[in-house]
């Protein structure tokens, strides 16, 4: 019987097809190929839903689709591309294809209606972006994941640099690719290390590398030396490999210290920002950790590092978001911060919590970006919040949906973000109290960040929509059409309700475990060894993670209280007819935050102050010394030739004399050698 899994490759191929169509014939198509993209992503969405339903029926799929490189001899490993369809990827497929579809529709309003040129290029990029991300999601092995990871990077480059005629976007695109490339370097080392260690890179199944690693741990079923650990003990080596792969995650998911590309990436069109932040590129990193969680669960060190990077990034980025002027900049830092929470959740042993936050964040962040896009259309592409104000009455649909997203972002009950963020923090707390005390530090940072999140989110809302209009454009904003409002409404509803699928605290309180749908979804029906249940066992056995039993109510109330405090402060300071720049009172700290802790300056200095002089010095060395030796050899021989030719005097008698002398010398030499004179 032909089922959903047989059509699953089409989920990836449809957007790819739209890429080809837009690239080749976008010029001749109405709307620059937009409809092809919409149809393709809609098709992907339908197929994803079908796959989702099939997976919820308990079926999974883990099979090779295409042998990329076939080993000729028995010993040679074949490199394959395949599909892994399990609860995690089925869920992610829906998120990605849904957000991609909405972004395509929104683009009709943001790009087509605004009369942009180069639309075929834009829609081709969107199509390829979607296809790459979907390919990444269904990847059944680490190599395939890496390949699509890189393609995602390419698409981000193309789309961030969409407005290539200006100075800023190409530079931002370059930075995005280069910084993530730096992370991908470690990822690639990790990939070859995984191949060298396990001889396979499959994610799931009995021959998958997380499983082989699990068996090879001390006390595992495999004999010592079953895998090549390069002279390290297995745990150390797996930690090293895990951290190498993590390099790619840190780059793509914009974690400290490789987060700097993301705010710059705001130079791209806003729908692209929505796609990058919500569902594709940035999500790829976190998704990768979740995908190979069975491997990370073996190494408490790697988990602790993940948790700390996450917690620190959450706080670090939130502080910077407090002082930004542009609406998209605030959202950019909130994205970094939110992905920090996901990393914190993964590192703290909250696999389900992090996945949950990945899902809710995809909805509310896509919503916020599209809402910001709507505002930007209205403001004639002015992004400065201080030029806005009072847009609430002029654009109610945008306002209410944006508010829904903001409430979710700030983590106010009962919006989506509350449930997921709360659960992440809860997991960090219970595992921290359960013996892994290091996690408490990460938890504390995450908790403080909640306050900042509440504050900057509502500062943004109040500055943008409340108070008096502060400029002419804000008094008379440009209207938006259905193609902008439609996606906003869909996402607004999701941002408000998506959290209800996994109300852990409520379940705990009411004693109704049945309503934690996501927990059930990830715990059962998956492929053996990749279920969240198995991960919990692994965490306990290998990483020594134990959860204290604690009611989720109190921690939930604490974080809610902090979020409300932040939002309340913003209300007091900014929800007035003409707000002042209160952050100026922070003085030096504001300057520090506004300049992103001088991270960009540091990286620019690394590029211009270190690498460039080094390259110039190397060039001097090469031209002077290495090439100098070559030229020196030629000069020496030219000089020697110039001297020796002086014997060519032009006087015949001299030549005759030389001949005679030569002959005599030869006779003498032969004579002495031959013993004629003895």
């Amino acid at each position, binding site marked *: 019987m032909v089922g959903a899994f047989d059509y699953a490759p089409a989920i990836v191929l449809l957007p790819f097809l739209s890429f080809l169509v837009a690239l080749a014939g976008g010029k001749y198509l109405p709307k620059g190929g937009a409809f092809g993209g919409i149809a393709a992503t809609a098709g992907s969405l339908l197929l994803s839903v079908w796959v989702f339903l099939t997976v919820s029926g308990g079926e999974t799929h883990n099979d090779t689709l295409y042998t990329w490189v076939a080993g000729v001899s028995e010993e*040679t490993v074949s490199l394959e591309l395949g599909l892994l369809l399990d609860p995690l990827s089925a869920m992610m497929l829906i998120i990605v294809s849904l957000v991609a579809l909405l972004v395509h529709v929104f683009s009709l309003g943001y790009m087509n209606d605004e009369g942009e040129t180069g639309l075929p290029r834009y829609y081709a990029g969107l199509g390829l972006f979607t296809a790459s991300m979907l390919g990444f999601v269904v990847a059944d092995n680490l190599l395939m994941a890496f390949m699509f990871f890189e393609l995602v990077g390419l698409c981000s480059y193309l789309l961030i640099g969409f407005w290539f005629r200006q100075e800023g976007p190409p530079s931002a695109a370059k930075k995005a690719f280069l910084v993530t490339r730096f992370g991908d370097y470690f990822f690639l080392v990790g990939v070859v290390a995984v191949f060298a260690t396990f001889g396979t890179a499959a994610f799931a199944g009995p021959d998958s590398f997380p499983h082989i690693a699990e068996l090879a741990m001390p006390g595992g079923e495999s004999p010592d030396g079953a895998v090549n650990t390069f002279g390290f003990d297995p745990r150390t080596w797996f930690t090293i490999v895990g951290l190498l792969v993590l390099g790619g995650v840190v780059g793509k998911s914009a974690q400290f210290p490789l987060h700097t590309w993301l705010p710059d990436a705001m130079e791209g069109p806003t729908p692209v920002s929505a796609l990058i932040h919500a569902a594709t590129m940035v999500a790829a990193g976190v998704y990768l950790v979740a995908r190979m969680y069975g491997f990370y669960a073996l190494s408490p060190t790697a988990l602790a590092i993940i948790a700390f990077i996450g917690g620190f990034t959450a706080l670090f980025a939130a502080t910077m978001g407090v002082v930004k002027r542009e609406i998209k900049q605030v959202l950019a830092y909130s994205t970094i911060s939110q992905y920090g929470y996901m990393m914190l959740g993964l590192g703290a042993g909250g696999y389900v919590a992090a996945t949950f936050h990945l899902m809710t964040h995809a909805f509310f962040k896509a919503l916020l970006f599209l809402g910001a896009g709507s505002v930007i259309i209205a403001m004639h592409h002015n992004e400065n919040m201080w030029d806005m104000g009072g847009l609430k009455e002029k654009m109610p649909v945008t306002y209410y949906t944006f508010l829904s997203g903001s409430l979710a972002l700030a983590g106010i009950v009962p919006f989506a973000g509350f449930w997921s963020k709360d659960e992440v923090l809860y997991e960090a707390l219970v595992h921290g109290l359960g013996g892994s005390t290091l996690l408490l530090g990460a938890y504390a940072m995450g908790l403080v960040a909640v306050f900042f999140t509440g504050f900057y989110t509502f500062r943004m809302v109040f500055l943008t929509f409340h108070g008096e209009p502060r400029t002419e454009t804000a008094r008379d904003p440009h209207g938006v059409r259905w193609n902008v409002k439609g996606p906003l409404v869909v996402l607004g509803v999701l941002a408000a309700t998506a959290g209800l699928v996994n109300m852990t605290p409520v379940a705990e309180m009411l004693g109704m475990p049945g309503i934690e749908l996501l927990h059930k979804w990830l715990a059962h029906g998956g492929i053996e060894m990749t279920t969240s249940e198995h991960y919990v066992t692994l965490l306990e056995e290998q990483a020594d993670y134990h959860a204290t039993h604690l009611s989720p109510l109190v921690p939930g109330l604490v974080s809610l209280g902090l979020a409300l405090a932040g939002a309340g402060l913003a209300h007091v300071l900014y929800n007035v007819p003409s707000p002042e720049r209160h952050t100026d009172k922070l003085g030096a700290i504001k300057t520090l935050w506004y300049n992103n802790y001088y991270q960009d300056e540091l990286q620019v200095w690394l590029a211009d102050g270190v690498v460039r002089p080094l390259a110039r010095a*190397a060039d001097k060395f090469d031209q002077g010394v290495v090439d100098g030796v070559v030229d020196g050899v030629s000069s020496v021989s030219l000089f020697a030739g110039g001297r020796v030719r002086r014997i060519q005097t032009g006087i015949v008698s001299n030549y005759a004399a030389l001949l005679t002398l030569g002959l005599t010398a030869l006779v003498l030499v032969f004579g002495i050698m031959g013993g004629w004179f003895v």
Partner: protein
Amino acid sequence: MIIEALIAVTFVAALVVFVAPDEVAGRLAAALSVLPVLGSLYMWSSYDAAGNALTGGSVAFETMVPWLELGGYTLHWHVGVDGISMPLVVMTTILTSLAIFSAWTPIDDRQSQFYGLFLFMEANLLGVFMALDFFVWFIFWEAVLVPMYFLIGIWGGPRRKYAAIKFFVYTNIASLVMFIGFAALVFGLGDSVSSFDLPAISRALRGGELGSLYGVSAETLKAVAFVAMFLGFAVKVPIVPFHTWLPDAHVEAPTPASVVLAGVLLKMGTYALLRFNFTMMPDQATAFAVPIAAVAVLSVIYGAILALAQQDLKRIVAYSSVSSMGYVILGLIAYNTYGVGGATFQMIAHGLISGLMFMGVGVIYNTTHTRMVGDMSGMADRMPVTTGIFVAGAFGYMGLPLMAGFAGEFFIFKGAFASTVHASMPLFTAASMFGIVIVAGYLLFAMQRTLFGPFRLDTDYEVTTAALHETVPMFVLLLCIIALGVDPGLFFRMIQDAVNPLVGGGLP
């Protein structure tokens, strides 16, 4: 006989073009250059050999007839292809043909001589890759230098004489060093082979039949010969620190010559390294594993850092070739299927991609008459198609998956990391892999400054769209690159087949 036909057709084509009038030479050469492409594709499709030609595997399209007797040594006309040379032959014909198309615009004087020399070079290149007798091989090997010398010296840039002489003398001296090394081996083998037949010599050397020569023990002789041949080929590859002829030659050479220089001529060095050093003397190669891996890493990183400092687009691509060739060396020393096979694959991949990059630079130069990064900006606005292909090629160079460069590099990394020749190989591999970051750095910087941003051009030329005969060859190359990236098995299957005997039988 098809090999003889292929080489002969190319030689005849060269002669015909040489005497043809200038007005038709370009078109005639392009038309005739399609013949070898068809021939090589036919060979590729009907390729039926198995194993490595030098270790007793079967050889496709083999001819072996005694040719000369020379001092007790029989010289054979011995040609044939195996899984290592077949892809290189296909790449050579395709790249040369496309380069000839791309030469129509920039070459505007003495066309018939230019295209005649070009085809003459192609014939010799084919000979290098298909010869299986040292004598025959060496004639072709040296004869390649002559047309390239003239191509640079006559049609080159302002410092063409310096560059041409440097190229010729440097590589020729290297050939001498290599020749002495190889001759010592042949004389050391003495009566057990008494010919210059490469398969026979290879089998004898691998079988340990080398005797002492003039009181030098077989081991010392092998080590010395290995070093001499390695140095000789290192110049050709080029491996740092023997690379300085390359940027000069590239900068001065006319673009079509650059395409073939980077695409095919550099591969002669790595091909010879694989055929001679790494096939015939695996024990010495593994004994020298650490220094060889070290120069490979040095080539990758140092070449890439030098590329960062360049302002001339052609110099950037030239130095990046040094970097890419370093990967090939790393793959060769890994001594496993993915390492050596990946190195061979990377030769093809780099040939196609660097060819594409040079063509792209050439098209930009033809319209703007400058190659300096600082002289232009925002070219994408005026040349969208060229920019598109150039960006695609640049990402191919950076190792974008599903393009040939990624396949080659990944195979090499995978092989080298898992290599057992020395415990330090994973470290060398990880160090050399950092090249993928630097390559992204200089290409992205160069593209940002030349192709994007507001349009500006500091030379007094009207920017026009590129002609079809300029963009179509680039597009064809791009398609080849993507095809090989999506299905590396097109070549990698036969490469593996030819490489496996080396890595299986060559190591203890």
